[in-house]
């Protein structure tokens, strides 16, 4: 059945990612550097503020960043560009001939790659944070962070495919990528927890899908036992998946009419 195809795509892409060790190491190492820099930043910042900023002390902030950065860095940074290129060059037309959902297969493949990267990055992050500040503040909450991170990555991939599908209509998806990336960085809570935002911005951020992609797993890992946060994640994931499938469907029909 179809699910078997998706699973095969997922596994083979995971294997490929594991095999290109050099690339994997570079990505994970880069994550380490980011973590090191942000750790230095927040150590100083919390110290000058009596140890706590908006409810986060240095320990919970570091664990927050371990998850928020790992969930985002797991995804190939040029994914949108690549999808755009495949659409622009007409390469996607070949995939449309197969009796499987194009977008489904692509997301399964991307997920295989991303989860391998995520696992490696997270391992480094956990080691780094444990040595620097000790174990996560709340282990029960941390246990929920793991499925939350998988949901976050899946939602992010689905959204990226919707964004990239713009390439069916406009031939430059690089610009769309810049905008998308910055939305995740900022209102997705990758750089700063939403609690540090001014109230209005925090409120708006919670209405957008981006907070499910970085903030939620990070919030859980930083020691806040709020398992109900998984609900908006599942909801947004379904919406984004349906959205991606819908936009790809429209794009494909356009491709069929206009030609590659």
């Amino acid at each position, binding site marked *: 059945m179809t699910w078997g195809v998706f699973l095969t795509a997922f596994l083979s892409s995971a294997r490929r990612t594991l095999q290109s060790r*050099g*690339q994997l190491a*570079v990505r994970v*190492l*880069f994550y380490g*550097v*980011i973590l*090191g*820099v942000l750790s*230095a*930043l927040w150590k*100083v*910042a919390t110290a*000058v*503020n009596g140890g706590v*900023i*908006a409810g986060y002390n240095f320990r919970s902030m570091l664990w927050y960043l371990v998850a928020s950065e790992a969930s985002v860095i797991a995804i190939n940074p040029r994914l949108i560009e690549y999808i755009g290129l495949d659409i622009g060059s007409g390469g996607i037309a070949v995939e449309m001939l197969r009796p499987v959902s194009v977008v489904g297969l692509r997301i399964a493949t991307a997920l295989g790659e991303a989860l391998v990267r995520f696992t490696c990055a997270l391992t480094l992050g956990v080691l780094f944070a444990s040595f620097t500040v000790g174990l996560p503040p709340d282990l029960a909450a941390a246990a929920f962070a793991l499925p939350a991170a998988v949901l976050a990555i899946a939602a992010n991939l689905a959204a990226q495919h919707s964004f990239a599908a713009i390439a069916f209509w406009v031939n*430059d998806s*690089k*610009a769309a990528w*810049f*905008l998308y*990336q*910055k939305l995740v*960085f*900022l209102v997705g809570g990758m*750089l*700063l927890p939403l609690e*540090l*935002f*001014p109230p209005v*911005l925090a409120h708006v951020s919670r209405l957008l899908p981006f907070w499910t992609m970085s903030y939620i797993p990070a919030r859980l890992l930083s020691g806040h036992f709020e398992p109900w946060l998984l609900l908006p994640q599942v909801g947004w994931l379904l919406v984004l998946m349906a959205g991606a499938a819908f936009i790809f469907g429209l794009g494909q029909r356009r491709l069929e009419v206009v030609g590659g």
Partner: protein
Amino acid sequence: MTAIVTTMKTALIEAWTNRKSFWLQVSFMIANDLAIVIFWMLFFREVGTVRGWDTGHVLVLFGVLANVTGISMGLLANARRLGQMIADGELDAVLALPVDPLLYLLVRRVDTALLGDLVFGPVVFIASGHANLETAAVFVIVSLCAAAFFASFLVVLGSVTLFLGGRGEQAELGFQALLMLASYPIDLFGGLIKLLLFTAIPAAFVTGLPTRLLTQFDWGESAIFLAGSLGSVLLARVVFRAGLAHYRSGALWTRA
């Protein structure tokens, strides 16, 4: 020299041929830069001053950084691609011309998206509140020197490909690391890391010292900074020239 200027002009004209995409990319890059500034504004709003750094101070840093990336990655777009160009044998066409290959290569291509940084840089600097006639002059000079330093760093990293082969991955990693470290206040770091920032990943010469010179000018530090950027340019030239004797023109890869 005329040849180099004409080459640069041609590269700019080429970038300009696709005007719609040009403006789109420039404006997205500015939006991109803006997001980072918003991050720091939110950060300092909540955190207050950290080791003497506030929003204005960070804006000075980003003004310099935007100029640096605008020049060394926008105007000199090939600097970042040098390692890959060497691996692909793309130096052939350049070496067949009677021009200084390094200089020609650097000005041969413009990356439109990053030209937005050159608009953003001065604007952020003015917004920082540290701008006056004197600092404006310093701003221009340090930006040019820091850009020269950054481009030289990229050239040295790319030239490693001439000696060791590979596809220039080391250049990409070094570039990412330097760019990231250069985008944080240098005073956050102490001891060993700070030493690293003056040597192996020399972020100090990209934004650290320039920002210091713009907020509290010091002749001694200017001398160190100028010497560093001049030295980097010389080093880049020497390393690239020495590497040319080892250039292999992608022969063994295209052969497959």
